[in-house]
């Protein structure tokens, strides 16, 4: 034996799986869930198809999935990202339909994440500032609470007054729709931090800033990520409203055009795209959550997953 009397501190076996294994394990655990998701969607589609088959659903108003998913290239033609209203641009100009679909999706996604990212950064910083400095609370919280119940639709004209047309108003809309709720959620999270954590830090001589940075921020991180996930869905809802009003192009604009041209197939086709995007990004966010919150036990993380 070459071991020293000192206990083998570093070599002690850890029951925690390494991080990479936790991630792949998570995907493994998620596969059955994915299977159930397919069954669930399949059931929904089957009922719809049956309604069509028995003649209860008028295919001109509620075309079943096999109709609106059958002509993908035909649908893609409606995703025109050409700036043809501009002087000097030919009516037929623009990228191919497949590329146009991709551009449309990417621009909506970009708006979602720009708005969500901005809202997260600003609301978490301001939420911490409100709890950290009383004066900031007195100066901002009444206004924030006053504006929180205002519907995103009410901000639409404001967005256009300030930012005109383009990405600006869409990102602003996402931001403004999420910001007030996220800041109130941040404050709630801070208030909910276990007092013992703070008292332990205080008895060890931590100053106010150290308490915020070393205790409160890590303690509220799991809650903030849940808030972020819920607001990802919120962001997708709002970006469509914003894009419906002359942003140029985007999934919301496609749906609005489908409405104006009475094209229900296109409406449902776009809804499918949005659903898949939201589902996919939620999955990615959960993976990120797993990696950041490595310190949560699996079951607690499951609870946080909702």
């Amino acid at each position: 034996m070459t071991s020293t009397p000192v206990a083998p501190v570093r070599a002690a076996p850890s029951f925690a799986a390494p991080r990479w294994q936790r991630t792949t394990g998570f995907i493994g655990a998620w596969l059955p869930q994915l299977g159930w998701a397919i069954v669930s969607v399949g059931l929904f589609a089957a009922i719809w198809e049956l309604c069509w088959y028995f003649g209860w659903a008028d295919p001109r108003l509620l075309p079943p999935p096999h109709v609106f998913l059958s002509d993908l290239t035909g649908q893609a033609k409606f995703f025109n990202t050409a700036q043809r209203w501009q002087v000097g641009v030919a009516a037929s100009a623009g990228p191919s339909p497949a590329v146009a679909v991709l551009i449309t999706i990417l621009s909506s996604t970009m708006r979602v994440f720009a708005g969500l990212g901005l809202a997260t950064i600003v609301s978490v910083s301001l939420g911490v500032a409100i709890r950290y400095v009383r004066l900031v609370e007195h100066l901002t919280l009444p206004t924030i609470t006053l504006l929180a119940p205002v519907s995103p639709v009410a901000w639409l004209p404001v967005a256009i007054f300030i930012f005109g047309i383009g990405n600006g108003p869409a990102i602003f809309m996402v931001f403004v729709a999420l910001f007030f709720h996220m800041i109130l959620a941040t404050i709630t999270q801070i208030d909910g931090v276990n007092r013992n954590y703070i008292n332990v830090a205080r008895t060890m001589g931590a100053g106010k800033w150290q308490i915020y940075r070393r205790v409160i921020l890590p303690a509220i991180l799991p809650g903030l990520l849940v808030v972020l996930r819920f607001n990802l869905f919120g962001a997708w809802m709002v970006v469509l409203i914003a894009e419906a009003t002359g942003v140029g192009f985007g999934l919301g604009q496609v749906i609005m055009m489908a409405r104006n041209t009475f094209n229900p197939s296109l409406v449902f086709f776009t809804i499918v795209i949005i659903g898949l995007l939201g589902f996919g990004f939620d999955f990615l966010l959960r993976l990120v959550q797993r990696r950041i919150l490595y310190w949560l036990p699996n079951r607690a993380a499951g609870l946080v997953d909702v």
Partner: protein
Amino acid sequence: MSEPAISCRGVGKIWAAGTERAHEALRGIDLKVDAGEFIVVLGPSGCGKSTLLYLIAGLEEPSAGEIMAHGVPVTGPAPDRSLIFQETSLFPWLSVWQNVSFGLSLRGTGKAEQREVARQVLFRTGLAETFDKRPHELSGGMRQRVAVARALAMRPKVLLMDEPFAALDVQTRAKMQGFLLDVWHESGASVIFVTHHIDEAMALADRVVVSTARPGRIKQIVGIDRPRPRDPFAPESVSLRRKLTELLSDEVDRAFAEQEA
């Protein structure tokens, strides 16, 4: 005559003073704790025992009276007075060694020294194999031991313990009491330990401070001058248990009557 580790003179605390919800938690506490002494404060639930610890820790200010730690008035928390809570208060986002060296990291101590101190403290407390673990991987008893280790890393002169073993099962609790006595012997710190458990008080204390129901006052101080570990079934233990039970049951009755009123 050496300075007492903690001395309370006429300490009282009224929570939410001046409001409708004001209630008096403590009144007229006079208590001197010698260096290296093990004091157990025994009282019914809600008698202000925890409040006393918070005041001594400097987390709250007394409404009346004065608290001195080693002859210096208490004006706020200080690392030489460590408080250990009932619920686990380890930071779940830090590993065990990072928890233990948290106080050092606040002072800007280097990483290598933090690790070394944590390693030594964990080794001394028989927790060496938990060094790299996360709190959620440990049992409740182990977590409380790490919490004690974390307090010891600050080299406290006074350990304040707020029903630290209340959430543990009976067997674990007995083990933890043995652990705590070892730690106390080795560190030479004074301990003020709050509990509503008579057997726990009898196993640990040099002096048992029996507290009244709200507002908490000192009803009687009972010295136990017997070597540890103490046999809970020895004749002295039986008579002492009877005495403490009688002292306490009056207060429990009063606390109940007050709650029903």
